[in-house]
Protein backbone atom coordinates (compact mmCIF):
# COMPACT_ATOMS: atom_id res chain seq x y z
CA UNK A 1 0.00 0.00 0.00
CA UNK A 2 1.16 3.50 -0.85
CA UNK A 3 1.37 6.35 1.62
CA UNK A 4 -0.90 9.22 0.57
CA UNK A 5 -0.15 12.90 1.07
CA UNK A 6 -1.86 16.18 0.21
CA UNK A 7 0.24 18.38 -2.07
CA UNK A 8 -2.29 21.01 -3.06
CA UNK A 9 -5.26 22.79 -1.49
CA UNK A 10 -7.70 25.36 -2.80
CA UNK A 11 -10.90 26.93 -1.57
CA UNK A 12 -13.47 29.63 -1.86
CA UNK A 13 -15.93 30.04 0.99
CA UNK A 14 -17.47 32.71 3.19
CA UNK A 15 -14.18 33.17 5.06
CA UNK A 16 -12.00 33.79 2.03
CA UNK A 17 -11.35 33.24 -1.65
CA UNK A 18 -8.13 31.26 -1.05
CA UNK A 19 -6.58 28.88 1.46
CA UNK A 20 -4.34 31.65 2.87
CA UNK A 21 -7.32 33.97 3.40
CA UNK A 22 -9.34 31.15 4.97
CA UNK A 23 -6.51 30.21 7.36
CA UNK A 24 -6.12 33.87 8.38
CA UNK A 25 -9.86 34.15 9.05
CA UNK A 26 -9.90 30.91 11.05
CA UNK A 27 -6.92 32.08 13.14
CA UNK A 28 -8.75 35.31 13.90
CA UNK A 29 -12.03 33.53 14.67
CA UNK A 30 -13.71 35.63 12.00
CA UNK A 31 -17.41 35.04 11.34
CA UNK A 32 -18.33 34.71 7.67
CA UNK A 33 -22.04 34.40 8.46
CA UNK A 34 -24.23 37.40 7.73
CA UNK A 35 -27.47 38.57 6.10
CA UNK A 36 -28.29 36.63 2.92
CA UNK A 37 -28.51 38.61 -0.30
CA UNK A 38 -30.54 37.20 -3.19
CA UNK A 39 -33.92 37.57 -4.86
CA UNK A 40 -36.99 37.05 -2.62
CA UNK A 41 -34.91 36.72 0.57
CA UNK A 42 -37.64 38.76 2.32
CA UNK A 43 -40.01 35.79 1.87
CA UNK A 44 -37.74 33.58 3.98
CA UNK A 45 -37.90 33.06 7.73
CA UNK A 46 -34.18 32.22 7.74
CA UNK A 47 -32.16 35.14 6.39
CA UNK A 48 -28.59 34.43 7.44
CA UNK A 49 -25.91 32.31 5.86
CA UNK A 50 -22.24 31.96 5.05
CA UNK A 51 -22.47 33.48 1.60
CA UNK A 52 -19.47 34.04 -0.66
CA UNK A 53 -19.24 37.79 -1.28
CA UNK A 54 -17.09 39.89 -3.59
CA UNK A 55 -17.06 37.15 -6.18
CA UNK A 56 -17.88 38.11 -9.75
CA UNK A 57 -18.10 35.16 -12.10
CA UNK A 58 -18.37 37.51 -15.08
CA UNK A 59 -14.73 38.57 -15.04
CA UNK A 60 -13.40 35.05 -14.51
CA UNK A 61 -15.32 33.04 -17.09
CA UNK A 62 -16.28 33.74 -20.70
CA UNK A 63 -19.83 33.83 -22.00
CA UNK A 64 -19.84 30.21 -23.18
CA UNK A 65 -18.45 29.02 -19.84
CA UNK A 66 -21.03 31.09 -17.95
CA UNK A 67 -23.82 29.35 -19.87
CA UNK A 68 -22.47 25.98 -18.65
CA UNK A 69 -21.16 26.69 -15.14
CA UNK A 70 -23.60 26.74 -12.26
CA UNK A 71 -22.29 28.59 -9.20
CA UNK A 72 -21.22 25.27 -7.59
CA UNK A 73 -19.11 24.52 -10.68
CA UNK A 74 -17.63 28.03 -10.65
CA UNK A 75 -16.57 27.57 -7.02
CA UNK A 76 -15.11 24.16 -7.81
CA UNK A 77 -13.03 25.42 -10.73
CA UNK A 78 -11.63 28.33 -8.72
CA UNK A 79 -10.63 26.04 -5.84
CA UNK A 80 -9.24 23.38 -8.21
CA UNK A 81 -7.06 25.95 -9.96
CA UNK A 82 -5.53 27.01 -6.63
CA UNK A 83 -4.99 23.41 -5.47
CA UNK A 84 -3.45 22.14 -8.70
CA UNK A 85 -1.24 25.23 -9.03
CA UNK A 86 0.06 24.66 -5.49
CA UNK A 87 0.76 20.99 -6.21
CA UNK A 88 2.84 21.96 -9.23
CA UNK A 89 1.47 18.95 -11.12
CA UNK A 90 0.78 19.04 -14.84
CA UNK A 91 -1.32 16.22 -16.15
CA UNK A 92 -0.18 14.57 -19.35
CA UNK A 93 0.77 11.10 -20.59
CA UNK A 94 0.47 8.28 -18.04
CA UNK A 95 -0.25 10.65 -15.12
CA UNK A 96 -3.14 12.20 -17.03
CA UNK A 97 -4.54 8.79 -18.04
CA UNK A 98 -4.59 7.51 -14.44
CA UNK A 99 -5.53 10.68 -12.52
CA UNK A 100 -9.16 11.61 -12.06
CA UNK A 101 -11.55 13.80 -10.11
CA UNK A 102 -13.78 12.56 -7.30
CA UNK A 103 -15.97 15.28 -5.82
CA UNK A 104 -18.84 15.56 -3.39
CA UNK A 105 -21.96 17.64 -3.65
CA UNK A 106 -25.41 17.20 -2.16
CA UNK A 107 -27.44 19.42 -4.46
CA UNK A 108 -25.35 20.11 -7.54
CA UNK A 109 -26.73 22.99 -9.58
CA UNK A 110 -29.45 24.04 -7.16
CA UNK A 111 -29.62 27.64 -8.37
CA UNK A 112 -29.96 26.43 -11.96
CA UNK A 113 -32.95 24.30 -10.95
CA UNK A 114 -34.28 27.27 -8.98
CA UNK A 115 -33.86 29.86 -11.74
CA UNK A 116 -35.43 27.67 -14.39
CA UNK A 117 -38.34 26.44 -12.30
CA UNK A 118 -39.02 30.08 -11.52
CA UNK A 119 -38.92 30.87 -15.19
CA UNK A 120 -41.38 28.16 -16.28
CA UNK A 121 -43.66 28.10 -13.22
CA UNK A 122 -43.70 31.67 -11.95
CA UNK A 123 -42.92 33.63 -15.09
CA UNK A 124 -44.91 31.26 -17.31
CA UNK A 125 -42.17 30.86 -19.89
CA UNK A 126 -42.33 27.77 -22.05
CA UNK A 127 -38.71 27.45 -23.03
CA UNK A 128 -35.48 27.07 -21.10
CA UNK A 129 -31.88 27.51 -22.18
CA UNK A 130 -30.47 24.43 -23.98
CA UNK A 131 -27.79 23.83 -21.34
CA UNK A 132 -29.96 23.60 -18.25
CA UNK A 133 -29.31 19.86 -17.87
CA UNK A 134 -25.52 19.87 -18.33
CA UNK A 135 -25.38 22.90 -16.03
CA UNK A 136 -27.37 21.48 -13.11
CA UNK A 137 -26.18 17.85 -13.10
CA UNK A 138 -24.32 16.82 -9.94
CA UNK A 139 -21.26 15.68 -11.88
CA UNK A 140 -20.91 18.93 -13.86
CA UNK A 141 -18.19 20.28 -11.56
CA UNK A 142 -16.14 17.06 -11.68
CA UNK A 143 -16.45 16.95 -15.46
CA UNK A 144 -15.36 20.56 -15.94
CA UNK A 145 -12.35 20.03 -13.66
CA UNK A 146 -11.41 16.97 -15.72
CA UNK A 147 -11.65 19.00 -18.95
CA UNK A 148 -9.83 22.04 -17.61
CA UNK A 149 -6.87 20.09 -16.21
CA UNK A 150 -6.72 17.10 -18.59
CA UNK A 151 -7.61 14.50 -15.96
CA UNK A 152 -8.54 11.34 -17.85
CA UNK A 153 -8.67 8.75 -15.06
CA UNK A 154 -11.59 7.68 -12.83
CA UNK A 155 -13.89 10.64 -12.25
CA UNK A 156 -17.29 10.79 -10.59
CA UNK A 157 -19.38 12.62 -8.04
CA UNK A 158 -20.49 11.30 -4.69
CA UNK A 159 -23.71 12.49 -3.10
CA UNK A 160 -24.24 11.60 0.53
CA UNK A 161 -25.76 14.83 1.86
CA UNK A 162 -23.49 16.42 4.48
CA UNK A 163 -20.86 13.66 4.20
CA UNK A 164 -20.48 13.93 0.40
CA UNK A 165 -17.00 15.47 0.43
CA UNK A 166 -15.65 13.07 3.03
CA UNK A 167 -17.00 10.10 1.12
CA UNK A 168 -15.48 11.54 -2.08
CA UNK A 169 -12.08 12.11 -0.49
CA UNK A 170 -12.19 8.60 0.95
CA UNK A 171 -12.59 7.22 -2.58
CA UNK A 172 -9.70 9.31 -3.91
CA UNK A 173 -7.58 8.21 -0.94
CA UNK A 174 -8.29 4.57 -1.71
CA UNK A 175 -7.29 5.01 -5.35
CA UNK A 176 -3.93 6.56 -4.49
CA UNK A 177 -3.28 4.19 -1.59
CA UNK A 178 -3.95 1.12 -3.73
CA UNK A 179 -1.55 2.33 -6.42
CA UNK A 180 -4.33 2.75 -8.96
CA UNK A 181 -3.55 6.48 -9.41
CA UNK A 182 -0.43 8.46 -8.53
CA UNK A 183 -2.54 11.56 -7.97
CA UNK A 184 -6.23 12.39 -7.64
CA UNK A 185 -8.10 15.68 -7.46
CA UNK A 186 -10.79 15.53 -4.79
CA UNK A 187 -12.98 17.52 -2.40
CA UNK A 188 -16.38 19.02 -2.95
CA UNK A 189 -18.59 22.03 -3.35
CA UNK A 190 -22.08 23.29 -2.71
CA UNK A 191 -24.13 26.34 -3.58
CA UNK A 192 -27.72 26.22 -2.40
CA UNK A 193 -28.00 29.73 -1.02
CA UNK A 194 -30.89 30.75 -3.25
CA UNK A 195 -34.58 31.17 -2.48
CA UNK A 196 -35.60 27.57 -3.19
CA UNK A 197 -32.50 26.10 -1.55
CA UNK A 198 -32.98 27.90 1.75
CA UNK A 199 -36.78 27.53 1.65
CA UNK A 200 -36.38 23.74 1.51
CA UNK A 201 -34.08 23.74 4.56
CA UNK A 202 -36.41 26.10 6.39
CA UNK A 203 -39.07 23.40 6.22
CA UNK A 204 -37.08 21.09 8.47
CA UNK A 205 -37.12 23.62 11.35
CA UNK A 206 -33.50 22.96 12.22
CA UNK A 207 -32.07 26.30 11.08
CA UNK A 208 -30.96 29.12 13.36
CA UNK A 209 -32.10 32.69 12.74
CA UNK A 210 -29.18 34.20 14.68
CA UNK A 211 -25.94 32.24 14.64
CA UNK A 212 -24.33 28.84 14.45
CA UNK A 213 -23.22 28.06 18.03
CA UNK A 214 -21.90 24.49 18.07
CA UNK A 215 -21.60 22.86 21.50
CA UNK A 216 -22.96 25.95 23.24
CA UNK A 217 -25.89 25.27 25.60
CA UNK A 218 -27.94 27.98 23.86
CA UNK A 219 -27.32 26.65 20.34
CA UNK A 220 -30.44 26.71 18.22
CA UNK A 221 -29.64 25.23 14.86
CA UNK A 222 -27.50 25.18 11.80
CA UNK A 223 -26.62 27.96 9.37
CA UNK A 224 -25.96 27.18 5.72
CA UNK A 225 -22.80 28.14 3.88
CA UNK A 226 -21.51 27.78 0.33
CA UNK A 227 -18.24 27.31 -1.49
CA UNK A 228 -15.72 24.62 -2.38
CA UNK A 229 -12.63 22.90 -1.08
CA UNK A 230 -10.39 20.99 -3.50
CA UNK A 231 -7.23 18.98 -2.82
CA UNK A 232 -4.56 17.06 -4.65
CA UNK A 233 -4.02 13.65 -3.06
CA UNK A 234 -0.72 12.16 -4.18
CA UNK A 235 1.41 9.08 -3.69
CA UNK A 236 4.04 10.03 -1.09
CA UNK A 237 6.94 8.59 -3.13
CA UNK A 238 5.72 10.40 -6.26
CA UNK A 239 5.53 13.66 -4.34
CA UNK A 240 8.94 13.18 -2.72
CA UNK A 241 10.58 12.26 -6.02
CA UNK A 242 9.55 15.56 -7.56
CA UNK A 243 10.30 17.60 -4.44
CA UNK A 244 6.71 18.71 -3.88
CA UNK A 245 5.69 20.53 -0.71
CA UNK A 246 3.65 18.15 1.46
CA UNK A 247 0.83 19.72 3.46
CA UNK A 248 -0.02 16.61 5.48
CA UNK A 249 -0.55 12.87 5.17
CA UNK A 250 -3.89 11.11 4.83
CA UNK A 251 -3.56 8.19 7.24
CA UNK A 252 -6.90 6.43 7.05
CA UNK A 253 -10.64 6.65 6.82
CA UNK A 254 -13.80 4.78 7.66
CA UNK A 255 -17.40 4.89 6.60
CA UNK A 256 -20.45 3.57 8.39
CA UNK A 257 -24.24 3.64 8.11
CA UNK A 258 -26.50 4.08 11.11
CA UNK A 259 -29.26 2.07 9.44
CA UNK A 260 -31.70 3.66 11.85
CA UNK A 261 -33.21 7.05 10.99
CA UNK A 262 -33.31 9.39 7.99
CA UNK A 263 -32.45 12.52 10.00
CA UNK A 264 -31.60 11.70 13.64
CA UNK A 265 -27.90 10.94 14.22
CA UNK A 266 -26.72 7.82 16.02
CA UNK A 267 -23.92 7.70 18.58
CA UNK A 268 -23.05 4.14 17.59
CA UNK A 269 -22.83 4.94 13.88
CA UNK A 270 -20.61 7.96 14.52
CA UNK A 271 -18.42 6.05 16.99
CA UNK A 272 -17.96 3.17 14.55
CA UNK A 273 -16.77 5.58 11.86
CA UNK A 274 -14.34 7.37 14.23
CA UNK A 275 -12.95 4.12 15.65
CA UNK A 276 -12.78 2.67 12.15
CA UNK A 277 -10.68 5.57 10.85
CA UNK A 278 -8.21 5.10 13.73
CA UNK A 279 -7.94 1.39 13.03
CA UNK A 280 -7.58 1.92 9.28
CA UNK A 281 -4.74 4.40 9.85
CA UNK A 282 -3.03 2.30 12.51
CA UNK A 283 -3.49 5.18 14.96
CA UNK A 284 -3.56 4.93 18.76
CA UNK A 285 -6.38 7.08 20.17
CA UNK A 286 -3.81 8.97 22.33
CA UNK A 287 -2.08 10.25 19.16
CA UNK A 288 -5.14 12.29 18.15
CA UNK A 289 -4.75 15.92 19.17
CA UNK A 290 -7.53 17.57 17.20
CA UNK A 291 -10.91 16.67 15.77
CA UNK A 292 -12.69 18.89 13.30
CA UNK A 293 -16.22 18.12 14.44
CA UNK A 294 -19.24 17.74 12.26
CA UNK A 295 -20.58 20.21 14.87
CA UNK A 296 -23.66 21.51 13.09
CA UNK A 297 -25.01 23.53 16.00
CA UNK A 298 -28.17 21.46 16.23
CA UNK A 299 -29.15 20.06 19.62
CA UNK A 300 -29.14 16.48 18.33
CA UNK A 301 -25.86 16.42 16.41
CA UNK A 302 -23.60 18.09 18.92
CA UNK A 303 -24.52 15.99 21.95
CA UNK A 304 -24.49 12.77 19.91
CA UNK A 305 -21.11 13.62 18.41
CA UNK A 306 -19.59 14.44 21.83
CA UNK A 307 -20.93 11.19 23.25
CA UNK A 308 -19.44 9.25 20.33
CA UNK A 309 -16.04 10.92 20.83
CA UNK A 310 -16.18 10.16 24.58
CA UNK A 311 -16.99 6.52 23.83
CA UNK A 312 -14.13 6.06 21.36
CA UNK A 313 -11.43 7.98 23.24
CA UNK A 314 -12.30 7.31 26.89
CA UNK A 315 -10.21 9.53 29.21
CA UNK A 316 -8.25 10.91 26.22
CA UNK A 317 -11.46 12.64 25.04
CA UNK A 318 -10.80 15.25 27.75
CA UNK A 319 -7.27 15.90 26.52
CA UNK A 320 -7.92 16.36 22.79
CA UNK A 321 -9.34 19.48 21.16
CA UNK A 322 -12.51 19.40 19.08
CA UNK A 323 -13.87 22.44 17.25
CA UNK A 324 -16.55 23.20 14.71
CA UNK A 325 -15.53 25.68 12.06
CA UNK A 326 -19.15 25.71 10.81
CA UNK A 327 -19.54 28.47 13.39
CA UNK A 328 -17.45 30.61 11.01
CA UNK A 329 -18.14 29.43 7.43
CA UNK A 330 -21.55 27.86 7.93
CA UNK A 331 -22.57 24.37 6.90
CA UNK A 332 -21.51 23.79 3.30
CA UNK A 333 -23.67 20.63 3.15
CA UNK A 334 -22.04 18.42 0.48
CA UNK A 335 -18.94 20.64 0.39
CA UNK A 336 -18.50 20.94 4.12
CA UNK A 337 -15.99 18.15 4.76
CA UNK A 338 -13.70 19.61 2.09
CA UNK A 339 -13.58 23.11 3.56
CA UNK A 340 -13.26 21.65 7.07
CA UNK A 341 -10.28 19.54 6.02
CA UNK A 342 -8.47 22.88 5.80
CA UNK A 343 -8.78 23.30 9.57
CA UNK A 344 -7.08 19.91 10.00
CA UNK A 345 -4.28 20.94 7.63
CA UNK A 346 -3.83 24.20 9.56
CA UNK A 347 -3.62 22.28 12.84
CA UNK A 348 -1.07 19.77 11.53
CA UNK A 349 1.05 22.07 9.39
CA UNK A 350 0.89 25.43 11.17
CA UNK A 351 0.10 24.24 14.70
CA UNK A 352 -2.97 26.48 14.92
CA UNK A 353 -6.31 25.10 16.11
CA UNK A 354 -9.33 26.86 14.59
CA UNK A 355 -11.84 27.87 17.25
CA UNK A 356 -15.56 27.22 17.70
CA UNK A 357 -16.82 30.80 17.61
CA UNK A 358 -20.14 32.25 18.83
CA UNK A 359 -19.77 29.95 21.84
CA UNK A 360 -21.61 31.37 24.85
CA UNK A 361 -22.62 28.77 27.45
CA UNK A 362 -21.10 25.42 28.39
CA UNK A 363 -23.37 22.43 27.82
CA UNK A 364 -22.82 19.47 30.18
CA UNK A 365 -23.74 17.19 27.28
CA UNK A 366 -20.88 18.65 25.22
CA UNK A 367 -18.25 18.75 27.96
CA UNK A 368 -15.16 18.52 25.74
CA UNK A 369 -12.47 21.10 24.95
CA UNK A 370 -14.26 22.78 22.06
CA UNK A 371 -11.64 25.56 21.67
CA UNK A 372 -14.21 28.26 22.40
CA UNK A 373 -14.01 31.54 20.51
CA UNK A 374 -10.22 31.91 20.27
CA UNK A 375 -7.73 29.99 18.14
CA UNK A 376 -4.99 28.15 19.98
CA UNK A 377 -1.40 27.18 19.23
CA UNK A 378 -0.72 23.48 19.65
CA UNK A 379 1.44 20.80 18.14
CA UNK A 380 -0.79 18.10 16.69
CA UNK A 381 0.37 14.71 15.37
CA UNK A 382 -2.98 13.36 14.15
CA UNK A 383 -6.25 15.12 13.32
CA UNK A 384 -9.64 13.67 12.44
CA UNK A 385 -12.36 15.21 10.27
CA UNK A 386 -15.89 14.04 11.04
CA UNK A 387 -18.90 14.10 8.73
CA UNK A 388 -22.23 12.60 9.74
CA UNK A 389 -24.91 12.97 7.08
CA UNK A 390 -28.68 12.91 6.98
CA UNK A 391 -29.60 9.40 6.08
CA UNK A 392 -27.19 8.12 8.74
CA UNK A 393 -24.17 7.96 6.42
CA UNK A 394 -20.91 8.68 8.20
CA UNK A 395 -17.38 9.24 6.92
CA UNK A 396 -14.31 10.12 8.99
CA UNK A 397 -10.83 10.91 7.66
CA UNK A 398 -7.63 10.71 9.68
CA UNK A 399 -4.71 12.99 8.79
CA UNK A 400 -1.17 13.13 10.11
CA UNK A 401 1.65 15.65 10.33
CA UNK A 402 4.57 15.00 7.97
Amino acid at each position, binding site marked *: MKRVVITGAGTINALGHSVAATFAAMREGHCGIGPLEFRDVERLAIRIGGQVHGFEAEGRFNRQQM*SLYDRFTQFTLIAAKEAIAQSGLEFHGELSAKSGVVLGTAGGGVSTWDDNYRSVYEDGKN*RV*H*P*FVVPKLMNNAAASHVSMEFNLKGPSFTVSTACASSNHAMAQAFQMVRSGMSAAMVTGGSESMLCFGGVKAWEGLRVMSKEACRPFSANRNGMVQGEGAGIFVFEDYDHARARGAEILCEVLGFAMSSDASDIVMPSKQGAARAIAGALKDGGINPEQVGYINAHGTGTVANDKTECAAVADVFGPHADRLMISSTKSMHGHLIGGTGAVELLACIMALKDGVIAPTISYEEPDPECALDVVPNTARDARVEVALSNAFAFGGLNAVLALGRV
Partner: protein
Amino acid sequence: MSTRDKVIAIVAEQALLAPSDVTLTSTLDDLGIDSMGLVECIFAIEEEFDISIPFNANTPDESDFDISNVAAIIAGIDKLVSQKT
Protein backbone atom coordinates in the same frame (compact mmCIF):
# COMPACT_ATOMS: atom_id res chain seq x y z
CA MET B 1 -34.21 45.69 -36.93
CA SER B 2 -35.05 43.38 -39.81
CA THR B 3 -35.14 39.60 -39.44
CA ARG B 4 -31.88 39.55 -41.31
CA ASP B 5 -30.11 41.93 -38.93
CA LYS B 6 -31.47 40.13 -35.87
CA VAL B 7 -30.36 36.72 -37.12
CA ILE B 8 -26.94 38.00 -38.06
CA ALA B 9 -26.56 39.55 -34.61
CA ILE B 10 -27.50 36.25 -32.91
CA VAL B 11 -25.23 34.16 -35.11
CA ALA B 12 -22.35 36.63 -34.79
CA GLU B 13 -22.60 36.63 -31.00
CA GLN B 14 -22.51 32.85 -30.93
CA ALA B 15 -19.52 32.75 -33.30
CA LEU B 16 -17.72 35.52 -31.39
CA LEU B 17 -17.50 37.53 -34.64
CA ALA B 18 -18.50 41.03 -35.68
CA PRO B 19 -21.87 41.12 -37.52
CA SER B 20 -20.03 42.44 -40.57
CA ASP B 21 -18.17 39.12 -40.78
CA VAL B 22 -21.42 37.18 -41.18
CA THR B 23 -22.93 37.07 -44.68
CA LEU B 24 -26.10 35.54 -46.08
CA THR B 25 -24.13 32.70 -47.65
CA SER B 26 -22.15 31.90 -44.47
CA THR B 27 -22.75 28.38 -43.18
CA LEU B 28 -22.62 27.58 -39.47
CA ASP B 29 -19.55 25.47 -40.22
CA ASP B 30 -17.84 28.45 -41.87
CA LEU B 31 -18.52 30.48 -38.77
CA GLY B 32 -17.14 27.80 -36.43
CA ILE B 33 -20.48 27.15 -34.70
CA ASP B 34 -20.58 23.58 -33.33
CA SER B 35 -23.62 21.49 -32.39
CA MET B 36 -23.89 23.10 -28.96
CA GLY B 37 -23.58 26.55 -30.51
CA LEU B 38 -26.34 25.58 -32.92
CA VAL B 39 -28.82 24.69 -30.17
CA GLU B 40 -27.96 27.95 -28.45
CA CYS B 41 -28.65 29.83 -31.72
CA ILE B 42 -31.99 28.08 -32.10
CA PHE B 43 -32.89 28.94 -28.53
CA ALA B 44 -31.93 32.59 -29.04
CA ILE B 45 -33.94 32.78 -32.29
CA GLU B 46 -37.00 31.24 -30.62
CA GLU B 47 -36.73 33.79 -27.82
CA GLU B 48 -36.22 36.71 -30.20
CA PHE B 49 -39.07 35.91 -32.59
CA ASP B 50 -41.38 34.11 -30.18
CA ILE B 51 -41.60 31.10 -32.45
CA SER B 52 -41.05 27.38 -31.99
CA ILE B 53 -38.53 25.89 -34.37
CA PRO B 54 -39.01 22.22 -35.32
CA PHE B 55 -35.45 21.08 -34.73
CA ASN B 56 -34.13 17.84 -33.25
CA ALA B 57 -30.38 17.81 -32.62
CA ASN B 58 -30.34 14.03 -33.27
CA THR B 59 -31.48 14.51 -36.85
CA PRO B 60 -30.48 18.04 -37.90
CA ASP B 61 -30.60 17.14 -41.62
CA GLU B 62 -34.14 15.78 -41.50
CA SER B 63 -35.51 18.87 -39.83
CA ASP B 64 -38.12 20.97 -41.67
CA PHE B 65 -36.08 23.94 -40.65
CA ASP B 66 -33.26 24.58 -43.13
CA ILE B 67 -30.01 25.61 -41.45
CA SER B 68 -27.74 25.22 -44.47
CA ASN B 69 -26.76 28.90 -44.37
CA VAL B 70 -27.78 32.23 -42.90
CA ALA B 71 -30.17 33.06 -45.76
CA ALA B 72 -31.97 29.73 -45.30
CA ILE B 73 -32.35 30.37 -41.56
CA ILE B 74 -33.82 33.83 -42.25
CA ALA B 75 -36.28 32.39 -44.81
CA GLY B 76 -37.32 29.70 -42.34
CA ILE B 77 -37.93 32.27 -39.60
CA ASP B 78 -39.96 34.52 -41.90
CA LYS B 79 -42.14 31.53 -42.81
CA LEU B 80 -42.70 30.59 -39.14
CA VAL B 81 -43.42 34.19 -38.16
CA SER B 82 -45.98 34.54 -40.98
CA GLN B 83 -47.71 31.33 -39.82
CA LYS B 84 -48.20 32.75 -36.32
CA THR B 85 -51.86 33.55 -35.78
